[in-house]
């Protein structure tokens, strides 16, 4: 921990001081974008090729990917370990019901539900904003259960027994399945893009610093709180979207399901196993999750036990998850959100780069020309905290 702390301490002055030039990692961006476009196009065409059983499974995978990506933004970047994201899952699900009851098409209600969830996220952030670690975790959990208690006490929403969306769906089963699939894919792409842009945007460096050492990052300015609020609200919107998709795909909404803490468990397990602190991790984690689910699905809840045990083991022994192992082994980053620090030509680099070289990464040579980025630059951020 001390090495990451000192690295963050060195990073923060770099953020404000003109000692260094900070650039984005840019390699591979173009071909990644191309591959991503092709992949999304293929996925979008899928309902014409496969049975609805496959697409409805993929809807579930996409929902978990969305939730895990949001939790990863919170815990992996903003340092906020939430165990209460099920609150926003539930809000999103019930918001779809409310809009549908008022005559709004469910797929129009989907983005509206996300908006509602984000709006709910603002006062919730105000409640939680000073809390950290265990306090934040449990308080977010309590907020979620308060939201659940409030929503499930409304009789027009079926109270605790749940409510069906069936009266509001005017599609054939096949068409509904396909549109739900496209909607889930759209929300997933939007969620990943939002996370990527957030991390590459101005707040990204702040978040990277926060992840390494929040206190050091805070001392660099008042920006941290604002960025954390932004992440929290984005995560609320994303989890609200996941909840809305859940409602549409299950056609039935019940408080004890959508507000269940097991959603938090799912997103946490998927993120940890896949790799916390990278955009790729939650995607891979969600896939692993469903591979294990499909493999052990016939043995009751065993799959969940196995996932929980794997997640605990990974958290202790392989903290950057499966993606961390792969990325280290083959040195790949599909979504490079790290930073390179380049010493200025007139600067002695020792003053502007972290005091010790990070194990495994080459130190910039003292005489490195400032103008030409080379692999000698030290990438920060893409290697978990």
């Amino acid at each position, binding site marked *: 921990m*001390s*090495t990451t702390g000192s690295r963050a301490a060195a990073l923060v002055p770099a953020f404000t001081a003109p000692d260094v030039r900070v650039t984005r990692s840019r390699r591979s961006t173009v071909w990644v974008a191309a591959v991503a476009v092709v992949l999304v196009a293929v996925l979008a065409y899928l309902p014409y090729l496969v049975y609805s059983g496959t697409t409805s499974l993929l809807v579930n995978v996409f929902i978990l990917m969305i939730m895990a990506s949001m939790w990863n933004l919170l815990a992996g970047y903003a340092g906020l370990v939430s165990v209460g994201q099920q609150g926003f899952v539930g809000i999103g699900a019930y918001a779809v019901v409310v809009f549908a009851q008022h005559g709004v098409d469910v797929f129009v209600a989907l983005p509206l539900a996300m908006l509602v969830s984000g709006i709910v996220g603002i006062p919730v952030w105000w409640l939680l904003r000073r809390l950290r670690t265990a306090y934040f975790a449990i308080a977010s959990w309590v907020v979620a259960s308060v939201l659940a208690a409030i929503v499930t006490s409304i009789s027009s929403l079926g109270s605790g027994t749940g409510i069906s969306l069936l009266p509001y769906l005017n599609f054939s089963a096949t068409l509904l399945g396909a549109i739900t699939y496209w909607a889930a894919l759209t929300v997933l792409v939007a969620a990943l893009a939002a996370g990527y842009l957030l991390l590459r945007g101005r707040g990204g460096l702040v978040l990277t610093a926060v992840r390494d050492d929040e206190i050091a990052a805070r001392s660099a300015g008042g920006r941290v709180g604002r960025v954390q609020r932004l992440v929290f609200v984005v995560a609320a919107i994303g989890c609200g979207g996941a909840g809305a998709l859940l409602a549409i795909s299950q056609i039935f909404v019940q408080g004890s399901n959508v507000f269940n803490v097991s959603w938090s468990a799912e997103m946490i397990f998927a993120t940890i196993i896949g790799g916390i602190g990278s955009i790729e991790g939650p995607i891979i984690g969600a896939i692993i999750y469903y591979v294990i689910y499909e493999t052990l699905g016939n043995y009751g809840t065993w799959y969940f036990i196995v996932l929980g045990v794997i997640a605990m083991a990974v958290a202790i022994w392989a903290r950057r998850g499966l993606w961390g192992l792969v990325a280290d082994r083959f040195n790949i980053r599909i979504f490079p959100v790290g930073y390179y620090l380049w010493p200025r030509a007139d600067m002695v680099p020792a003053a502007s780069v972290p*005091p*010790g*070289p990070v*194990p495994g990464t080459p130190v910039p040579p003292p005489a490195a020309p400032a103008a030409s980025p080379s692999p000698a630059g030290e990438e920060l951020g893409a290697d978990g905290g």
Partner: protein
Amino acid sequence: MTAVPSAGALPPLLEVAGLTAHHGQLRALDGVSLQVRAGDVYAIIGANGAGKSTLLRTIAGLHRPTAGSVRLDGEDVTGRRAERRLAAGIALVPEGRRLFPSLTVEENLLVGASYARPGPWSVERVYELFGWMRDRRRQPASQLSGGEQQAVALGRALVANPRVLLLDELSLGLAPVVVHRIYGMLPDLLSTGVTVLLVEQDVSQALRVASRIHCLLEGRTTLEGTPDGLTADSIEGAYFGLAAVPESAHEGLGVDPA
């Protein structure tokens, strides 16, 4: 000129050989060797960041060395955890005193005595050494002054009846008169059979009390010898790493300039 041990019959009480330790990538200690004989007051001197505290922490078992060994009375203790080294007879008074702030003075001493070896020191004996302490034994340690805290920290280590007492920067942050008083206790400690290995930034203080001097510079030994065998020039050279260390000093001390 070198203080020749009595025919080399007895092995040194504490023997450090080729000790290398890192803080992350930084090499804090680089092949440091030293031999402390029973009854010595062995002083490590050196500037800030010379690796003095790391050396003591590594000997005490708080820091894991990357190479080298620590032997106590011939027995290799390198792989042992700090708490097991106390049982073997190595006690460290850490830099910054590190009392248990929410415990009283007496409770601090009792914690020190929890895993004590048999020996002359007891809480009662510490009270005899520091008269004021008995009256204030029920005060929280956090309410004491710096010098008083240092005395309690010393007492907490003594009640464990160590064979080798490691003292890290006793004088840090204390008024000169207090430092003088604390170092004045050393003869009392030695008379009970304790051997002392201390780290001191104040060279003149170290020269006054030590029977042997060992100078570190950036983790390496630059000088070793008895205080009366060293000249001010040789010490200054070793302390600041000036190139102009007189050859004679090395010859006289039998020290490899490394």
